[in-house]
């Protein structure tokens, strides 16, 4: 995995597999304190303490098509090789929170990559779920919240209508570009 946004896409697939209904993705980029953090929180089925203690090793998986799970170990490694740290908290029946902190300017820190496309793909592929996305770059902030979109659309118009998806795509592209002082 060469981009942090791809790790995010992958870690969120775990939340979706765990039957989460609400998924929050928070990115905080602070060049001044030399830190970039990514926190993904879900209200899925969670993990037991025993399983959680093993999940950072590639041999912990409940998948059936392959014997090793790679998503979490890869994300952990990406953080640790930048002098950062990785934590995962989970409670059975309540949900899971995964947090990775990276050294912002570390040479091995992967670029964030196309996070707008990743967020779009998540919404497009899972229009029944709610995503809360908060991204800070220095003092700039962008929040994208499907609950807010739903409150405008009402119940008859789904997020997966083509014209709504186009709006969502542009909203994400514009919002993220503005974060970096674009436009």
């Amino acid at each position, binding site marked *: 995995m060469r981009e942090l946004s*791809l790790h995010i896409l992958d870690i969120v*697939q775990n939340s979706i597999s765990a039957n989460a209904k609400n998924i929050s993705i928070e990115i905080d980029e602070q060049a001044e304190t030399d830190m970039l953090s990514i926190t993904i929180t879900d209200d899925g089925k969670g993990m037991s303490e025993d399983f959680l203690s093993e999940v950072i090793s590639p041999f912990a998986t409940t*998948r059936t*098509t392959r014997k090793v799970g*790679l998503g979490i170990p890869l994300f952990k490694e990406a953080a640790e090789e930048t002098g950062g740290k990785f934590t995962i908290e989970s409670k059975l029946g309540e949900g899971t929170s995964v947090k990775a902190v990276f050294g912002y300017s570390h040479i091995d820190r992967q670029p964030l990559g196309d996070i707008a496309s990743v967020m779009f793909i998540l919404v497009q*592929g899972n229009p029944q779920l709610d995503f809360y996305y908060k991204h800070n770059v220095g003092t700039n902030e962008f929040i994208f919240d499907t609950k807010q979109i739903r409150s405008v659309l009402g119940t008859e118009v789904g997020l997966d209508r083509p014209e709504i998806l186009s709006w969502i795509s542009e909203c994400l592209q514009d919002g993220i570009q503005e974060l970096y002082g674009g436009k």
Partner: protein
Amino acid sequence: MKSLAELAALREQALSQIHMRNDEQDGVRIVVGMATCGIAAGARPVLSAFLEEVNKRKLENVAVVQTGCIGLCRLEPIVEVYLPGQEKVTYGKVTPEQVAKIVADHVVNGKVVKEYTIGEIDK
């Protein structure tokens, strides 16, 4: 920044069209594997390319959906195409550059792009 007022206007537009929407049952399904193996092999840009192509051609009866691991990790990115009433076709090691041809030949014209299928690339 996109405005919520614009979104509200789109809602009105969508509502006026909803009753004309035909049943999606006999539509085409394009399924992209999005587990760790798929994502690491480049499934994200492939999925984006399918969404763009379908959008650009305004294909109404085509659903682009995501799935977990298909179980053939070394052939990822894997894409399955289901045409109504036909056996599924599985493409392997798909690149964004191949997407336009798969949509034009297979999805639109019903002609499988044989050289991209897993049977061919695995020879």
